[in-house]
């Protein structure tokens, strides 16, 4: 029997408080390489905070987080966090593109300025990534000239240009008009099919059911239940999860 491969992301009893408000009360989670994990739950349950802890945007109070070879809670300075951010990219609800830079510049900036990659290589990577999301012709546009769906696709490309091992998606369709949700979900679906490790916080239950290898349900700062999607959505055990699914489905 082959040695089991350790999960690429592993959270163990992670706790986080903002002031006196405890947002995460002991979160444990494992994500295998190449898998897609969705986190669902009512707003304010700490879903987005989990993502921000994984790439070190938010420091944790106790517990441990390992991403590949990085022990995240030991990375105390922004400098120490740079290699982690190379391996973990994040896409935000509000896109957060840099409005004073063109689409192409948005994608090129960090790989060249932070990772010190060769500009020519980055440029050809960026162009092929933009082509993949059907935005090859918009490289010279400014974010303000694009629709929400287009901006979010650029944001995904910007994150991919870091050539990460793990992608974090924080409610990336929540700010979009319904007709634009599809185009963004399509891009994520392609990524998942290519074997990218993805962790999504989402309200799109049907999409989660379709794409996820495992779904975590959080409520009140803890993980109430986690299971493969079929089981979680169709045979929920915990009454809180049942109540939640009744409301959103």
């Amino acid at each position, binding site marked *: 029997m082959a040695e089991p491969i350790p999960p690429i992301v592993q959270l163990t009893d992670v706790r986080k408080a903002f002031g006196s408000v405890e947002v995460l009360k002991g979160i444990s989670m494992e994500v295998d390489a190449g898998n897609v994990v969705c986190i669902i739950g009512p707003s304010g349950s700490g879903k987005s905070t989990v993502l921000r802890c994984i790439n070190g945007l938010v420091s944790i109070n106790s517990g441990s987080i390992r991403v590949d070879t990085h022990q995240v809670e030991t990375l105390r300075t922004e*400098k120490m966090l740079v290699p982690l951010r190379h391996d973990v990219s*994040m896409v935000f609800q509000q896109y957060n*593109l840099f409005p004073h830079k063109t689409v192409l510049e948005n994608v090129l900036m960090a790989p060249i*300025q932070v990772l010190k990659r060769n500009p020519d290589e980055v440029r050809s990577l960026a162009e092929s990534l933009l082509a993949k999301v059907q935005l090859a012709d918009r490289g010279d546009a400014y974010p303000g000239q694009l629709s929400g769906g287009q901006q979010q696709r650029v944001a995904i490309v910007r*994150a991919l240009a870091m050539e990460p091992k793990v992608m974090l998606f924080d409610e990336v369709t929540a700010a979009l008009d319904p007709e634009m949700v599809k185009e963004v979900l399509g891009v994520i679906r392609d990524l998942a099919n290519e074997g990218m490790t993805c962790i999504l916080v989402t309200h799109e239950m049907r999409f989660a059911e379709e794409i996820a290898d495992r779904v975590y349900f959080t409520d009140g700062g803890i993980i109430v239940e986690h299971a493969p999607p079929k089981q979680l959505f169709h045979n929920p055990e915990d009454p809180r999860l049942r109540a939640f699914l009744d409301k959103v489905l």
Partner: protein
Amino acid sequence: MSRELTHALIGFFGVIAVLGGVFLAAYGGDSLDAVIVLTNRASLLLIGSNSFDSVGGGFLANIGISLASMVVATVLGVSLGGATTAPNPMVRNTAILVVNLMRNSPWLVVLYAMLYLIPFRLSIFGTEYWVSPAAKAVVGLSVPVTAYMSEVFRAGIQSVPDGQWESARALGYRRGAILRRIILPQALPQMIPNIMTTYAMLFIGTSLVVVTGTKDVLSVAKTVIASDGDDYATAVYLFVLLLFFIYCYPIATASRAIEQKIRKAGLHG
């Protein structure tokens, strides 16, 4: 352009008309004499010398002092403003305290203080430097203006949404690089009207340097009144008011126009 420009022109010529009206009301039949006195003294008040081929001070000194102070205050204000947004609470609170102390100091008192704090002679690396009153005036005016500029920078930095910081950090940028490459390029256009307003305020403040003994326009005005007689004091001060107005009004008007433009762009974008 049309409406704003019309309003600006009405304001500009309206004020000049009011000043002219006061002038005529004050001097009546002697108005011509007063005009002649002003004409003879115009070069002295403007550039501090009796003929226009040499420069000794006057209104030009106010302009020079204001520009020098602005440079000093901008450089110091950027650092101080950055410090007021620092993540380290010690640095941040100290900076906020310093800003408030500097902001709440009367300009006149600071100018007096600089007059006495800064020695007349300064020896740097064995070389003796004579510290001119104008240099003291620049230092004195820079103190409150640095505080204002740091506020302008702080407000500018804070006008950029938090998401920009967050996504830049997620891409691996560090604080200094985020400020330089992502935040400031977005904040600077927002800050331009406030910078212009601060400069106009600083320029108005240059009237106070009269206490430092420079050859600024008010000092020259006092000399002129002393030699030509108190009768012409009203005329001379009206002229000085006019000079300040002609210099400051376009700056203030332009800054307001730019601010409205930015606000409109912000609403549509």
